[in-house]
C-alpha cells in the first residue's frame, strides 16, 4: 500500500472531525479514478416526485436534479473517483436534515443509499426513511470530494 494513503488515514483519525468519509487524495485513491463515460442508458429519475417530510424527528427531502443521464462532475475531480458522492448523478437528490444522503439507482429502477448499500428500495422516500431508522439520530458525515 502506498504510504500516502496510510498517512492520510492516520491524519484523518487524528483530526477526529466530520468529513471523515473523505480520506483525502492518495496514490491508491488515484487508482480509483476513471475516465468519463457517458452511457445515456441511465433510467430517468426526473419523473419522480419531490418529497419533504419529518420522519421520526428527521427532516427528509428529495427532489429530481433535472440532470438524469448526465455524469455531472464525473472524471473532473482530480482522479479521486472513489468517494465520488457528487461524481454520479442519478437524477435525484436526497437529504437528511440538510445533509446529502448519497443515493444510487439500480438498473431495475430501485434505489440504494450509502447507509443501506446492500438492500434495495422501490423509491427514494422509502430509502430516506430507511436511512433515518438506521442512523438512530446520528448525523450523516458530509460527502466531500478531496
Amino acid at each position: 500500500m502506498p504510504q500516502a494513503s496510510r498517512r492520510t488515514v492516520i491524519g484523518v483519525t487524528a483530526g477526529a472531525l466530520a468529513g471523515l468519509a473523505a480520506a483525502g487524495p492518495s496514490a491508491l485513491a488515484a487508482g480509483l479514478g476513471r475516465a468519463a463515460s457517458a452511457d445515456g442508458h441511465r433510467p430517468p429519475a426526473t419523473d419522480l416526485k419531490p418529497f419533504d417530510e419529518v420522519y421520526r424527528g428527521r427532516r427528509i427531502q428529495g427532489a429530481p436534479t433535472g440532470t438524469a443521464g448526465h455524469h455531472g462532475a464525473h472524471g473532473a475531480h482530480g482522479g479521486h473517483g472513489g468517494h465520488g458522492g457528487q461524481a454520479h448523478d442519478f437524477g435525484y437528490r436526497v437529504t437528511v436534515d440538510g445533509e446529502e444522503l448519497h443515493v444510487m439507482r439500480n438498473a431495475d429502477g430501485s434505489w440504494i443509499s450509502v447507509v443501506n448499500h446492500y438492500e434495495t428500495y422501490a423509491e427514494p422516500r422509502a430509502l430516506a426513511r430507511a436511512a433515518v431508522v438506521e442512523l438512530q439520530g446520528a448525523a450523516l458525515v458530509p460527502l466531500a470530494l478531496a
Partner: protein
Amino acid sequence: MTVRKNQADLTRAEKRRFVAALLELKRSGRYDEFVDIHNGFIMGDTDHGERVGHRSPSFLPWHRRFLIDFERRLQEVDPSVALPYWDWTVDRTPTASLWAADFLGGTGRTGDGKVMDGAFAETSGSWSINIRVDQRPFLRRALGSGRRGLPTRAEVDAVLAMPVYDASPWNSASSGFRNNLEGWRGADLHNRVHVWVGGQMTTGVSPNDPVFWLHHAFVDKLWADWQARHPRSSYLPVEPTRNVVALNDTMRPWNDVTPADMLDHTPYYTYDG
C-alpha cells in the same frame, strides 16, 4: 501454506492470534486503507458506468484479490494467521460462537447499535471507526434484526447449480451465478448477509466490521465450489466489453491482475474442506 478454516473450528489460540493481528493492523493504520478502498469502489461502481468491485462480473475476482492483500497484511503481523470463513448456512444465529466475546463480540445494544463486548467494542479503546458514513465512531451491529434470515444451504445449492457465470448486461440486472451469489437477483446470498449483520456492514464502509473478511472468505469459497462443480464454465465475459472487466483485462486499483489470474486460488491459499 495458508489454509483458510471454518471459523467454527478455530482453536482459542487461533482466534486470539487472528484478533491480535486485526488490532495491530488497526493500530498501524493499515486496516483503514482497506476500508477506504472498498468504500471508494462501492460508491463508484454503477450499473451503467464503469464497475469493477461490485455489481459486475469482476465482483468475485476483485474481492479474491482484495482478501489476498488483506491476508498478507495479517501475515506480516503474524505468519500463522489465515482468514477464517463464516459458513452462514450453518452458524445462523446471534448466539453462534463467532459472536462470542473471545472472538468478534456480539450484537449492538438498543438505541445506538453499539457493540458492547469483545476486542472490537468501543470500550476496548482499540477499534475506532474512522472511515464512516455518519458521526458514530464505534462499531455497530444489529444481528438478525432485519426482515430476512440468513440464506439457507438449499438456497446456496440452487445458486451453485447455475451453470453460467454471468450474463449481459453484466450488472445488477444480470442472470447467472455471479449476480445470484452477489444477491441483486434471486434468493440474495451475499447482500442479505451484510443486511443481517447490520450496522456498518449494511454500508459502503462494511469492512469496518471484521466479520466482513469472514463473510467474503465464504463467498470466495462458494466461487471455488462452483468452479469445481462446473469445470467447463468460464469466467464471462471473455471478450472486451464496455464498462466491465473481461477475462484478460486488468482490475483497478492494482492494474496488474486480471480475472484470469484469480481463477485458481490454490497458489495463494486452500480451504479446509
